[in-house]
């Protein structure tokens, strides 16, 4: 069918900030969709509140709205732009939900906008679990038995029919919380009660559990001619009970006979037809009973998903792009396969390698929560690795994770050799039964301790085929130890290391990294590497080509493997390698992929061949048509060096991908690799605190008083000298968060005795902690002669709240001009002193008009995309050109940027996903993503940022205030303002007293410890619309914990800093002074 010409304007809704369960995969899919639709001549309107995305670049859509994804705002955009259609299936759950509510609220009818891809009916049928169940009944596909209940009584009546363990899911919970597995009647009662409580319609679904069954996913595509193809099958390594997002997954399915697979395929085809998803991709999850092959459908996502991104990268089939083309009327047979060119997209990819995805977790940031993996997703990112065998792929995936593990490193506790057999097997049992991020490694340990495969299976329920492969790995490990440990004692290890080349090559084919081999043989990475080179045990590179080599591939999308024929054939063009940022994690997310992609674009403009190296399947950078050549590889010395040797680039860029590639700068240079941009030497000066301190002194710039302690005594002395409070940065942490503010000597003692180790090998860095200081971020580009200041961002929250967690305003909203000019001056001085070529980010703290330098990052920073979009200058692109040798002068930079608007960045946090975690902010970053609010003044911009971050500020109602003593003064003004605006104020005793003294009318409420009904009851009863709560010191924080946690669960906006509260008040004022209007960034930046 030809494409539709009855529509010419299409609205795409993005997925908003990066949160657990919705990461950059939707930037990838949205960006592909925008490109695909514009390629076909459609006008694309885009709305997404996340500035750190490629899709919100002004070039990607015709009109780009960086605005809150709310019905109200999108309605305004629709009214203004009048699109004829919305493509709702590419913006994740957020985009889908937004589209649904627009439809249900009649907005789409009013402006006659059509839903293309999936109609409302289909979306509802797939999303509403009872409708889905009914649909499956109609086509004879089995689903787990389930019952909806509205009261504990009925719940107790039906449980016998369902049986234990039972899955309990609360309906329509805010923030998708609620839902747990009950193993016994007590838990059952508890979960039902909380479930009914959290469900706005007091309804929970009780579902038969199939924990331990095998879990599979199919990526399905359908077109308007009703052609249906399966793009990829995915088998979960972790059985049912661990969310697919948290499971290690493998493509294609490994342990299904064709008979079983085709049964699943037939079901998938029937399902997508019955649900009625017209065009595009859907993700369908199945479960299979390993005992008898019984198959159940678990759920369908009527949209592209995280798994679609994975499937696209795993097969080379661009699901999102094709989905977009199908939505506007094309059929699969009309769209060519980009990779093979001469064959159509209407086929099912055949792959001739094994793909392994491992999720990346960040529990280290949340020591107070359990690491158990459940049916709720907790991972913050993922890596994908490609190998010719599962063993090779899993090994590559492990080292892609960057968790300090170079393979199946043993996790056995020290002294275990002394344990009895019982103790050992007990230890292993618990480690194997409970799914946690470490279970993969515990399996290897179990084999090391001689546990049988069957036993391991009985505890873990992980398919024996996977277990066997891990056994093969540990067996080889043994063989290597046997044959090579002897004669390699420390004294003479490096000099004459030797290893049977056959064994070495086999180890490489089994996915062993050089570092891991070094550990096994008591040698070091370099020695192994050089020996490997001498014996010419080197990897080759093969194509990901969608067709298992049946047809020639035209797009160089490559992975390494230890085989014989290499398909890389590098060109002789001028080329540059850009190293990516690896898996998303807290502190290093999509922003860095954004910068890498811009680097690629800029270098292409300069005529270079661009080569991308990355291992994160969610990203735009790993799209096969972003760079000229894509290597889907781990970002380790070993793997990167092999690529460099193969490609022989002019140089390598390490400053766009965050710390991951930056860490490689010095070692790569040691291996004779040319690092482009700021020199490794200067990178090291900035990164090494001692060298950096010297530089600051030389330049006469202030740092917070600091010192470096090698012992507890030392630490106390230094702390005394500096004066409390101090900020501690240990180099070695015994678990839990690293940075810590301590207010007195006990605090210090406690911390040192409990949390960290202090020794000459593990010194602790001690800074004087600047209280109530304003923190400021500056991003700039330097070419070694000139420095372009992109933005000076004033943080809302004071120093002490990590820069990544505090909101910030561009331009600054309170600091005066001298300070700003001084900050710019210092930035220039530092940039030139470090001879920075490319990007630099500096964090300052301003206290009593004195400027302190907190840290300098000689690389792209988290705020680059935010700044670029706020000022309308593509910082990363320009930096890339400077790195390639251009001068800022030649790039006609705007002299000084005059902003006609204010941009506010706000962070979003994953607290809801982690039971028992406090929401107080500190020097350790905890946020997963950010949003941007753009408007004519600070108040409105901040208000929009809050809306986007899903904290809906109230315009009326009652505000609860409870603050620590030092805040009791500043809070007065806030309270006054709120009263003027017609809010009621309630407060806990102390705060209430302080306020009444200033004769502010306030209703006192009980603290949780003071009896009931207390503040928590009031929040639950919806009698509180806003919470302002600051707390200092362990006791106070524990006492007020439940307040913050309840506010979180009930989605009541809360502020844990006075600064935040002040800003909130200004925002509420702005909101009351008139409605918000919308402006595309193209309009904002018209010059």
């Amino acid at each position: 069918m030809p494409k539709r010409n009855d529509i010419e304007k299409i609205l795409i809704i993005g997925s908003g900030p990066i949160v657990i369960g919705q990461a950059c995969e939707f930037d990838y899919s949205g960006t592909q969709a925008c490109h695909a639709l514009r390629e076909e001549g459609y006008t694309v309107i885009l709305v997404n509140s996340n500035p750190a995305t490629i899709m919100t670049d002004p070039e990607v859509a015709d009109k780009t709205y960086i605005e809150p994804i709310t019905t109200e705002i999108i309605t305004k955009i629709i009214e203004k732009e009048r699109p004829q259609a919305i493509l709702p299936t590419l913006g994740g759950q957020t985009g889908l939900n937004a589209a649904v509510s627009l439809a249900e609220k009649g907005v789409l009818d009013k402006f006659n906008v059509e839903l293309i891809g999936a109609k409302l009916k289909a979306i509802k049928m797939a999303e509403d679990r009872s409708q889905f169940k009914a649909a499956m009944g109609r086509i004879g596909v089995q689903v787990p038995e389930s019952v909806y209940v509205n009261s504990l009584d009925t719940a107790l009546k039906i449980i016998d029919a369902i049986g234990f363990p039972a899955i309990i899911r609360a309906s329509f919970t805010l923030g998708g919380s609620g839902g747990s597995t009950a193993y016994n009647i007590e838990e059952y009662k508890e979960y039902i009660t909380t479930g009914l409580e959290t469900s706005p319609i007091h309804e929970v679904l009780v579902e038969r559990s199939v924990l331990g069954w095998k879990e599979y996913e199919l990526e399905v595509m359908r077109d308007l001619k009703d052609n249906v193809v399966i793009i990829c099958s995915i088998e979960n390594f972790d059985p049912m009970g661990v969310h697919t997002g948290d499971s290690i997954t493998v493509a294609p399915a490994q342990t299904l006979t064709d008979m079983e697979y085709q049964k699943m395929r037939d079901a998938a085809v029937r399902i997508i037809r019955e649900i009625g998803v017209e065009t595009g991709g859907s993700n369908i999850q199945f479960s299979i009973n390993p005992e008898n092959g019984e198959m159940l459908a678990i759920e369908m996502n009527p949209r592209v998903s995280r798994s679609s991104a994975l499937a696209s990268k795993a097969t080379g089939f661009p699901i999102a792009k094709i989905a977009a083309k199908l939505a506007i009327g094309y059929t699969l047979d009309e769209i060519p396969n980009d990779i093979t060119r001469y064959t159509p997209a209407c086929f099912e990819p055949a792959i001739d390698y094994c793909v392994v995805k491992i999720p990346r977790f960040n529990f280290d940031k949340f020591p107070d929560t359990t690491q158990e993996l459940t049916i709720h997703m907790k991972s913050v990112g993922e890596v994908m690795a490609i190998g010719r065998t599962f063993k090779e792929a899993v090994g590559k995936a492990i080292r892609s994770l960057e968790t300090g593990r170079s393979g199946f490193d043993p996790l056995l506790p020290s002294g275990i050799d002394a344990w009895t057999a019982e103790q050992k097997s007990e230890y292993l049992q618990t480690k194997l039964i409970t799914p946690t991020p470490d279970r993969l490694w515990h399996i290897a340990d179990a084999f090391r301790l001689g546990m049988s495969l069957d036993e391991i299976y009985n505890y873990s329920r992980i398919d024996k085929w996977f277990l066997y492969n891990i056994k093969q790995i540990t067996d080889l490990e043994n063989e290597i130890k046997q044959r090579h440990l002897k004669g390699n004692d420390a004294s003479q290890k490096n000099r004459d290391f030797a290893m049977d080349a056959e064994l070495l090559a086999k180890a490489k084919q089994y996915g062993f990294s050089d570092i891991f081999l070094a550990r096994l043989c008591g040698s070091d990475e370099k020695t192994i590497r050089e020996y490997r080179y001498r014996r010419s045990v080197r990897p080759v590179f093969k194509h990901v080509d969608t067709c298992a080599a049946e047809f020639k591939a035209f797009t160089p999308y490559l992975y390494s493997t230890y085989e014989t024929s290499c398909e890389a054939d590098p060109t002789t063009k001028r080329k540059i390698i850009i190293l990516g940022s690896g898996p998303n994690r807290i502190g290093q997310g999509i922003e860095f992929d954004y910068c890498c992609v811009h680097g690629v674009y800029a270098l292409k403009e300069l005529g270079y061949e661009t080569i991308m190296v990355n291992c994160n399947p969610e990203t735009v950078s790993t799209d096969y048509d972003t760079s000229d050549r894509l290597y889907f590889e781990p970002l380790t010395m070993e793997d990167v060096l092999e690529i460099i040797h193969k490609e022989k680039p002019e140089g390598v860029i390490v400053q766009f991908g965050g710390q991951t590639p930056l860490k490689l700068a010095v070692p790569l240079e040691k291996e004779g690799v040319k690092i482009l941009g700021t020199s490794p030497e200067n990178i090291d000066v900035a990164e090494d605190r001692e060298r950096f301190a010297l530089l600051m002194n030389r330049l006469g710039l202030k740092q917070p008083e600091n010192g470096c302690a090698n012992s507890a005594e030392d630490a106390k002395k230094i702390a005394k000298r500096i004066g409390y409070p101090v900020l501690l940065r240990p180099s070695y942490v015994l678990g839990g968060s690293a940075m810590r503010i301590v207010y007195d000597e006990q605090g210090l003692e406690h911390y040192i005795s409990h949390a960290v180790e202090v020794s000459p090998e593990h010194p602790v860095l001690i800074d004087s902690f600047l209280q109530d200081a304003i923190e400021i971020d500056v991003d700039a580009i330097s070419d070694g002669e000139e420095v372009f200041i992109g933005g000076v961002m004033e943080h809302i929250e004071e120093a002490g709240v990590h820069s990544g967690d505090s909101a910030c305003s561009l331009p600054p909203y309170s600091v005066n001009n001298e300070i700003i000019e001084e900050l710019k001056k210092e930035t220039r001085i530092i940039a030139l002193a470090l001879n920075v070529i490319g990007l630099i980010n500096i964090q300052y703290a301003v206290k009593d008009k004195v400027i302190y330098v907190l840290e300098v990052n000689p690389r792209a920073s988290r705020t680059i995309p935010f700044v670029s979009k706020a000022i309308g200058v593509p910082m990363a692109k320009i930096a890339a050109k400077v790195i390639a040798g251009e001068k800022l002068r030649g790039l006609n930079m705007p002299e000084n940027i005059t902003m006609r608007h204010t941009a506010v960045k706000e962070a979003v946090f994953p607290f809801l996903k982690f039971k028992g975690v406090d929401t107080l902010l500190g020097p350790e970053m905890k946020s997963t993503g950010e949003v941007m609010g753009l408007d004519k003044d600070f108040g409105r911009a901040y208000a929009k940022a809050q809306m986007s971050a899903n904290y809906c500020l109230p315009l009326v109602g009652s505000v609860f205030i409870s603050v620590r003593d030092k805040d009791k003064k500043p809070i007065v003004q806030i309270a006054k303002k709120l009263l003027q605006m017609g809010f009621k104020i309630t407060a806990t005793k102390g705060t209430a007293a302080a306020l009444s003294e200033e004769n502010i009318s306030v209703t006192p409420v009980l603290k949780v410890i003071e009896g009931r009904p207390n503040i928590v009851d009031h929040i639950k009863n919806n009698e509180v619309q806003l919470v302002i709560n600051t707390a200092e010191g362990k006791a106070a924080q524990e006492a007020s914990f439940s307040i913050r946690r309840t506010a979180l669960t009930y989605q009541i906006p809360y502020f844990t800093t006075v600064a935040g509260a002040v800003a909130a008040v200004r925002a509420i004022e702005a909101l009351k002074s008139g409605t918000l209007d919308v402006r595309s960034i193209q309009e904002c930046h018209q010059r």
Partner: protein
Amino acid sequence: MYRRVACVYELLHVMKMNEKKAILVLEDGTCFNGCSLGAAGETSGELVFNTSMMGYQEILTDPSYAGQIVALTYPLIGNYGINEEDVESYRLFLEGFIVKECSPFSSNWRSKIDLSEYLTKNGIVGIQGIDTRSLTCHIRDFGSQQGIISTVDFDMIRLQEKAKSAPGLTGRDLVAKVTCEKPYDWVNKEGAPHLSPRYKVIVYDCGVKYSILRKLAHAGCSVHVVPAKTSFETVLEMNPDGIVLSNGPGDPSVVSYMIKNIKGLLGKRPIFGICLGHQLLALALGLKTSKLKFGHHGGNQPVMDLSTKKVEITAQNHCFAVEIPSQGMLHKSSYGDVEITHLNLNDKSVEGLKCHSVPAFSVQYHPEASPGPHDADYLFDRFLQTMKS
């Protein structure tokens, strides 16, 4: 070629420690060192690669592979072992088997024995641990050719000679090797469906896959299988409602007796041709067949039904194909017009045809799948329809 081979040896020799060595040599001298899989010995045949990611058991038992050494492009094979149900014939007809890594451990609730054990039991000589992707690229670029696997002789020159002198597929009647000796009736394991057989179907066994018989029986036909050499008179005497020309190995043009039979049956009974059966029907109708560069072997081949313009993802396994008639998509035959009904979207080759004036149609691909998608199931109903009218 030889230079690459040398380095191939260097590295690939590697994994074969404590495993028995095996070598694969191609007609053109390309050589791969791996280790022995299945039976020891030496075997030669035409090399083909199959891109199906699952279904190795069905592939191994498919008689159409007679005369061929089959390489699987998916590297991890044997994971789910071998079961009792998924068989397509009573024995293994292929000449040899090539995989990257054969799993020594099988995991599946139906699995009875491991793949390697199964191959040994059935005397199949195979090789594993070679770079199957480079082999595939080689066949893709230079076309299919003879190859030899040996676990006894490692002299490349001598092996290359043997490979060259091995009989090719062209001009060789392999059907005679695989067809059944005497007629037999087929009944499905689960027994016939309750309804009494609606149609009596005779299946010409040119190397028939059991799944074709299963599908027919399941559709409510009484299924009678006859040897390929059975004369059409004999078949007509059995008074069937319809006739199925089965799949099978090799070059259709030399299976003259089948072509003769088909001519005798055209117009007398409804005919349904599958794969080789399709090629034989085409020949009987005066169309030409020829050998493809490396054939179609896999479960992801897109085929368009030209009447509905809908695409089905099909299972295929053939080296020869029907040529597009000189007069275009319509061919005038002594049995009336013959229409090309299906095309392969990858290479636009003929995938199906239909006679206008006599009840006969055929497809190049496998509606019985096994292994592969079930998209083409409907063809069996279509056959039932033609028998009704």
